[in-house]
């Protein structure tokens, strides 16, 4: 263990460059995965609050475009086994002076899923604000949403960034604002075992709608797939950049240390021993870079989360599964990036030490 550390210290300039390039790549992978994972999990959490089943307009790609009749909610409430059911309008509109804010028009029975911090739930013509936007707007008494004025009746606290940075109002007000009856209906059940049966019943209510378990809706939700795919692509690029960085730096390291590997070959150390030696060295760098990148990512996410500019909508999440996944990625990055230069090192012909003094 001591020897690789000595070697790394001796070549500290290139060691630091490899370390930097790995840290940047690993942090990039962490951040992009955490942020996209955060968006997906925030939105999922929102839909899953009292929502075992979600009802949308049939064949719609995005909840924002979904348009269904809010009276559907009353019919669903009649179905046996349904615990709660609430209609919701999901929209986004300018809230003076913010250019775009999430607006949630909800039926009255859903208010209780927004824990009040101050004031009371809104009547028609009123809104309640998430605590984050309430702070950003500096405790307003009224707000102007799409040129329409609303009184602020209360403030709620939600751990879901989209809600905490958003505005909740009555379904009817939302309907006027976005010119629709409702976007979705969220249904929670007495017993999850009945979900197939109840979905069947809901689907017979109206030919224009589609009911699914929220779980499967999220799995198939196009927006999430787009976010996930872009994040995977960017992550893969960061991974490749990391590998390229290691390959090019390690090639230089190997050529600096030609004599060292030549002499090892001449005293009979096997090629495998030389490859393992170099892999060991980069593995050490990778582990340190991983730890540093993890720390940096936590720091950056913390900053983003509290940046007013993002209204709390960006809420990165580094789960332990992500940590393990990125750790494996880092190790693979180090091993793959080092392998070719190490292979070259292991094949340096000791005859070059004899014939050219200048290795």
């Amino acid at each position, binding site marked *: 263990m001591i*020897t690789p550390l000595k070697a790394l*210290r001796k070549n500290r300039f290139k060691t630091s460059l490899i370390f930097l390039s790995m840290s940047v790549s690993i942090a990039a992978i962490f951040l992009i995965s955490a942020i996209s994972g955060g968006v997906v999990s925030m939105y999922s959490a929102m839909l899953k609050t009292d929502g075992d089943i979600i009802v949308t307009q049939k064949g719609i790609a995005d909840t924002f475009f979904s348009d269904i009749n809010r009276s559907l909610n009353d019919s669903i409430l009649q179905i046996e086994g349904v615990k709660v059911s609430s209609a919701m309008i999901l929209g986004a509109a300018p809230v003076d002076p913010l250019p775009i804010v999430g607006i949630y028009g909800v039926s009255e029975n859903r208010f209780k899923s927004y824990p009040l911090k101050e004031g009371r739930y809104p009547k028609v013509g009123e809104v309640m604000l998430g605590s984050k936007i309430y702070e950003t707007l500096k405790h307003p008494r009224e707000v102007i949403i799409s040129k329409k004025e609303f009184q602020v009746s209360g403030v709620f606290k939600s751990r879901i960034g989209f809600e905490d940075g958003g505005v909740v109002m009555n379904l009817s007000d939302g309907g006027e604002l976005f010119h629709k009856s409702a976007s979705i209906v969220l249904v929670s059940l007495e017993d999850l075992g009945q979900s197939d049966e109840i979905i069947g019943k809901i689907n017979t209510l109206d030919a224009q709608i589609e009911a699914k378990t929220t779980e499967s809706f999220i799995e198939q939700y196009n927006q999430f797939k787009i976010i996930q795919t872009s994040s995977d692509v960017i992550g893969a690029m960061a991974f490749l950049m990391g590998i390229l960085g290691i390959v090019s730096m390690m090639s230089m390291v190997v050529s600096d240390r030609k*004599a060292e590997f030549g002499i*090892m070959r*001449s*005293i*009979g150390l*096997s090629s495998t021993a030389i490859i393992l030696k170099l892999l060991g060295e980069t593995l050490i760098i990778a582990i340190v870079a991983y730890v540093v990148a993890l720390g940096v990512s936590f720091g950056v996410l913390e900053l983003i989360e509290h940046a007013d500019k993002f209204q709390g909508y960006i809420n990165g999440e580094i789960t332990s599964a992500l940590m393990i996944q990125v750790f494996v990625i880092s190790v693979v990055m180090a091993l793959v990036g080092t392998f070719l230069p190490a292979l070259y090192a292991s094949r340096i012909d000791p*005859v070059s*030490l004899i014939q050219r003094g200048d290795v």
Partner: protein
Amino acid sequence: MTIEALGLEHFYGRDKVLNGVDVTIDAGSFTAIIGESGSGKTTLLSILSTLLQPSAGIVKYDGKIVSELGNIDRFRRHNIGFVFQFHYLISYLTLRENIALGAMEESRIETLLHSLGISKLSHRYSDEVSGGERQRAAIARALVNAPSVVFADEPTGSLDSKNALGVYELFRGFSCAGTGFVVASHDKKIADYADIIIEMEDGVVKDITK
């Protein structure tokens, strides 16, 4: 151990630099290869020491043909030591660690450090000792696995004459104890220490004297 070379020829591209060399070296002796610059000393030494494959001809160790030995790394590790003109000590390791690097067992290290007169310096790094001391550490590294034969190409090439004679004396001492040395050099003084002198000229053996 006996090293036998038969009909060695070697080309670098189209240049023929060895032109039919036959030599037999008793590995328990001190053999010097001398000759003008460009006469083929290094090439011959590289071939004899298994590092270089000749274009034609064969090298045998105790009757076994080198190119037919299975694992050449292993063979070298057990039988052959090298000393080069430059010490090639690894700069981030101490002299002792350099010597230990390829050692199959560490028991000989102390004795070697002692007999080469560098035991007090063994914890130093190569840039903290003199050129002669570095070369002695390199010799210790070559001897650590008790090889039958040590090959050295211009081992005194970067040393002053006093240190050079010291190195020849070391070789002589170790060869009396049974380790063979094959040393290429254009220093004529080596002749005073060697048992056998092979003189090269234009890629052929001009003379062998004992």
